[in-house]
């Protein structure tokens, strides 16, 4: 099996352009991951494929960079007191089950409707989940920004926390007690989404915020623990099949380890609702990107007819929009960090002036 896999693998030649692209996307992806707990993977896999890397190698190499990045990000944010290790591990267990369910669903769709059907399923999942969840996250962030109020625990989470359904678990850092049974669906959906669109955090983080009742800061930090556990498991599986191109992994890692630490530092500088702002914005732009990719699959399945040139154009616009999602997220993070630094500097100057008066 391994020999067959190795024979099928095609490792690309590296050029300075390829290396620069992977390093920059790795850095920006790392920055976003360090800040919101996930992100980057959705651009890196199609990005590597556009460079000529086979899909399986792209997924494997991307996953192999994801878990050490999550490890470094989680460690950094743990030092800031933002990681609830128990919450992350409990969620990771159910998320691992969710991944297996997601793989089974993918296999079923692939067997019945072929590759175009599978791609359409992935795109529809992307659009539906990202519009609904991302739309709500963005609306919540907009509401907090407009009112200037403090981030509050959702009404749903408060209701669920009051239901005494053993076993009840207390999460010390998140400072909440909730039944294990309410964390399981969030974990399962996180895994399911990770197996489908490779970014489980787009459900995991909002799930921990709005269903479990943890803050945005704790949720995004604990998501890195989930990403580490799931990423390690997935990487071992891919490595056993000999699909990891270590060169690609290490180049991405070079950028992402710089980015993830900067993102983690950013969470301590900016206002907490900025995590929701960044996450909601990225999710909505990614949803748009995947909607643009859908006509190709609908045409392949015979549901609509579109000429080849239009489909090529839509594919290009879709990929550029996806890159744009990551870039916009990075700009918001860096912009808000800069703003916070300026305010801190102004406060320091003010304090010094005050002392001298």
């Amino acid at each position, binding site marked *: 099996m391994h020999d067959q896999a190795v024979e099928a693998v095609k490792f690309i030649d590296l050029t300075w352009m390829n290396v620069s692209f992977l390093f920059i996307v790795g850095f920006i992806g790392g920055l976003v991951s360090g800040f919101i707990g996930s992100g980057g993977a959705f651009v890196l896999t199609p990005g590597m494929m556009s460079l000529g890397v086979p899909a399986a190698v792209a997924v494997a190499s991307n996953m192999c960079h994801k878990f050490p990045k999550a490890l470094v990000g989680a460690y950094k944010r743990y030092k800031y007191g933002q990681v609830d290790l128990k919450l992350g591990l409990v969620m990771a267990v159910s998320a691992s089950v969710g991944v297996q369910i997601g793989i089974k669903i993918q296999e079923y769709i692939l067997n019945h409707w072929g590759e175009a059907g599978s791609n359409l399923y992935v795109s529809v999942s992307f659009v539906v989940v990202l519009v609904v969840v991302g739309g709500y996250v963005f609306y919540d962030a907009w509401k907090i920004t407009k009112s200037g109020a403090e981030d509050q625990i959702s009404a749903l989470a408060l209701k669920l926390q009051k239901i005494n359904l053993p076993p009840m678990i207390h999460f010390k850092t998140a400072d909440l007690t909730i039944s294990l049974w309410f964390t399981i669906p969030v974990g399962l959906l996180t895994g399911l989404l990770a197996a489908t669109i490779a970014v489980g955090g787009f459900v995991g983080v909002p799930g921990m915020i709005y269903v479990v009742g943890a803050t945005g800061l704790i949720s995004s930090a604990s998501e890195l623990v989930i990403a580490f556990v799931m990423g390690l498991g997935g990487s071992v599986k891919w490595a*056993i099949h*000999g699909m990891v*191109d*270590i060169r690609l*992994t290490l180049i991405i890692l070079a950028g992402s*380890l710089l980015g993830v630490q900067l993102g983690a530092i950013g969470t301590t500088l900016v206002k907490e609702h900025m995590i929701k702002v960044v996450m909601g914005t990225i999710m909505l732009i990614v949803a748009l990107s995947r909607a643009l990719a859908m006509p190709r699959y609908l045409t392949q399945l015979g549901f609509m007819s579109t000429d080849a040139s239009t489909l090529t154009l839509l594919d290009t616009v879709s990929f550029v929009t996806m890159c744009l999602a990551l870039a916009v997220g990075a700009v918001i993070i860096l912009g808000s960090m800069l703003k916070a630094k300026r305010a801190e500097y102004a406060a320091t100057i*003010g304090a010094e002036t005050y002392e001298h008066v």
Partner: protein
Amino acid sequence: MSAKTDNSRKKLVIQTMLLGAITAVLYAAVFSHASTVVELFARGGYYAVFPIATVFVFSFAHGAFASNLWSALGIEAVTKQAVKRPAVSAPRPTKRERPRLRMSV
């Protein structure tokens, strides 16, 4: 106080340079033998331990370097407690006795 800060800053810069050198050596070791490494790491089976162990080693070395680099550049985390406010002295308790109601009959 200032000398102490200068010393710790110098120490940080030296540490960053050292970790940067270790990271560079690790990257050079892999990329100077890229074709052999890629072929070995893609054999699958028990050879899976190589890519997994490699990314762990790189994440420790490069992760520590990246952390020190941001600190050396002055980009560091702040906590709410760390933001220093001008110390305003608390109002002194009044020495004057509280007025008491006295009634002379």
